[in-house]
């Protein structure tokens, strides 16, 4: 039995040494349990040496994972293979590493939570599985980190597993899983066999390379334990962070669904990753059709370029703030929105994502535009009014013999002008009627006291605004004249104002007749209104025809004054 074992052992060790280029003590351990060693060898061949994964990838991964093993046999032996003491993964064709490459591998930092999150993100982003990466590439680092998670904390490695599977494909993933199982077995075996000694070749290497020895052995153990603890902590953190992120995401989104803005999340350059239900409701676009750059379809075609350019600058500016139009699905029209977004950053200041809102400012903009128009109109009216005041002043000067005359007449006319301004400003929503205009003039004279002598008669007629000012000033002249010199200044005079509407080839018109009877001709002739060339007659006989296309007459008889004013009711633009 012993002989047989020894004979068999001899051919066994030959085979092992043949494969590695030397005989590792690992396969000489436990001589009392030769069957187990045979099984280990079979396992090593199938999962490690003969596995069709690239030899350097396997050996580097073996070394990397062995950093986390408290017994240092594996890391020392496999680093030896990598350096060409023996052969990397038992492969004669593999090019051994230089010392610098080996040191770099041993010094690779253990990723923190954020870095690990990025690593997994990159693996998950693989659209197509690819070959295993070349040594010393970012892709290899990513894969090593994910495999470390699978290796050390398999119960929490769901994300790492799916990431690796996505990155390398199913077949290579199975080979990797088998490889990890063998490394784990090897580590376990070495922990059960503390008597395993480093082979002489590695003792010599470590003697020559104290830095390498330090990394492999002295601080190595402590580092390993710490790194191990750190990595576990990292993975735990990541797990918790993801969980609470999912939770707070869900809470946040519930809040978001209740606010009036359209809310969305995006990653670099404006690629949307989420859109709130309000977005879908407003634009009529499903969330899945709006993700990526799908949301741009809802933007007004004229605004798209501006928006895309703005996104290009957003990361640099640290903010996104711009107004553009979005199509409202229900109305089939574009409305203005102000869109603002702020970047969410990780611990290192990198932008992880953008959280943005789009607020409907269409009504606000319309109001602002209306206000601008109103202010312009107000300016125009004010300046125009000053010009009117100036012309009334010079007309009144021409008709006045004394400063006292001027003062009375001027202030009287200004009062009338101010009254009609009041009427006009109140009428911004409602039309001014003939009766209202006449009423305001007669009322200002206190004419209601003599109401028995005044007849005012006519249908409800709306006056166009453009005609009101000049018309009111003319009526004022007539009314003032009646009160001071005409029918209302005598004992027995009567005033009758009637009007009607009719239409001729110029459109609808208003015909007003102002008739005073029982007046005193002598007194009337004193009136500045009646005097030819006086302000009142100028207004009636010239200003009304000039400004309002009116036809007017003014006739003074022995005991009677008759004035007619006939003017178009339609807007002049309609006449043209």
């Amino acid at each position, binding site marked *: 039995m012993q002989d047989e074992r020894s004979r068999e052992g001899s051919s066994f060790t030959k085979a092992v040494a043949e494969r590695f280029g030397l005989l590792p003590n690992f396969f000489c351990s436990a001589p009392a349990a030769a069957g187990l060693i045979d099984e280990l060898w079979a396992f090593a061949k199938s999962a490690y040496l003969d596995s069709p994964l690239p030899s350097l990838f396997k050996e580097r991964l073996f070394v990397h994972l062995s950093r986390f093993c408290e017994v240092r046999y594996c890391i020392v032996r496999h680093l030896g293979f990598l350096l060409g003491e023996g052969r990397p993964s038992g492969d004669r064709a593999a090019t051994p590493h230089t010392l610098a490459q080996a040191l770099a591998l041993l010094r690779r930092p253990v990723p923190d939570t954020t870095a690990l999150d990025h690593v997994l993100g990159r693996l998950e982003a693989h659209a197509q599985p690819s070959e295993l990466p070349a040594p010393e590439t970012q892709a290899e680092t990513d894969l090593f980190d994910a495999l470390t998670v699978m290796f050390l904390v398999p119960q929490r490695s769901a994300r790492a597993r799916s990431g690796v599977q996505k990155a390398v494909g199913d077949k290579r993933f199975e080979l990797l899983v088998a490889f990890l199982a063998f490394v784990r077995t090897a580590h376990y075996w070495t922990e059960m066999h503390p008597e395993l000694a480093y082979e002489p070749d590695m003792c010599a290497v470590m003697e020559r390379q104290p830095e390498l020895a330090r990394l492999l052995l002295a601080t190595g153990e402590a580092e390993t334990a710490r790194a191990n603890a750190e990595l576990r902590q990292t993975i735990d953190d990541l797990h918790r962070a993801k969980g609470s992120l999912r939770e707070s995401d869900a809470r946040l989104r519930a809040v978001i669904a209740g606010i009036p803005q359209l809310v969305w999340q995006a990653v670099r350059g404006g690629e949307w990753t989420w859109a709130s239900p309000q977005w879908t409701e407003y634009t009529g676009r499903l969330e899945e059709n709006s993700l990526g750059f799908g949301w741009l379809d809802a933007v007004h075609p004229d605004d798209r370029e501006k928006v895309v350019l703005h996104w290009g600058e957003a990361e640099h500016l640290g903010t996104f703030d711009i107004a553009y139009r979005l199509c409202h699905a229900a109305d089939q029209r574009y409305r203005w929105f102000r869109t603002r977004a702020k970047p969410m950053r990780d611990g290192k200041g990198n932008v992880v994502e953008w959280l943005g809102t789009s607020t409907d400012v269409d009504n606000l903009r319309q109001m602002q535009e209306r206000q601008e128009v109103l202010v312009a109109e107000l300016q125009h009216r004010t*300046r125009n009014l000053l010009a009117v005041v100036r012309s009334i002043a010079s007309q009144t000067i021409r008709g006045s013999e004394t400063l006292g005359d001027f003062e009375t007449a001027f202030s009287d006319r200004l009062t009338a002008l101010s009254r009609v301004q009041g009427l006009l400003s109140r009428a911004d929503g409602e039309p001014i009627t003939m009766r209202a205009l006449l009423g305001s003039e007669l009322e200002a004279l206190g004419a209601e006291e003599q109401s028995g002598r005044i007849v005012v008669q006519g249908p409800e007629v709306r006056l166009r605004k453009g005609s009101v000012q000049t018309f009111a000033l003319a009526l004022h002249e007539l009314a003032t004249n009646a009160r001071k010199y005409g029918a209302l200044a005598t004992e027995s005079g009567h005033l009758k104002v009637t009007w009607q509407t009719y239409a001729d080839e110029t459109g609808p018109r208003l015909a007003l007749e102002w008739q005073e009877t029982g007046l005193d001709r002598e007194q009337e002739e004193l009136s500045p209104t009646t005097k030819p060339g006086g302000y009142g007659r100028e207004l009636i006989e010239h200003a009304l025809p000039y400004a309002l296309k009116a036809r007017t007459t003014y006739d003074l008889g022995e005991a009677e004054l008759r004035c007619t004013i006939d003017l178009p009711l339609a807007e*002049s633009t309609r006449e043209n």
Partner: protein
Amino acid sequence: MMGPNSLTGRRVLLVEDDYFIADELRRDLAKSGAEVLGPVGRVDEALALIGRTAHIDGAVLDIKLHDEMVYPVADALLERGVPFVFATGYDKSVIPAPYAKVRRCEKPFEPEIVAKALFG
């Protein structure tokens, strides 16, 4: 006597919808020696007057004439190369781009300023 900044002997078209303002401007311009064409208060009347007047040296235009804008009149004058000013209460920002460079005289204005703007 026709100095460069003077209105003397100039034929000036006056377009203004308010009778009294028009009358005032007419008096002022006439006092300064101008021969006033118009005044007229409507776009169609102004275009008709321009059409039948062979010689016009300059024009003073109110921008808003009742419910219409004076721009067709401005276009007709631009076509004939007649200089003109806007006499208006409107602010510059309201004036459409093609006429942005036209001088504005705020009402009420002094004839000398109009003279300078037109012929200065």
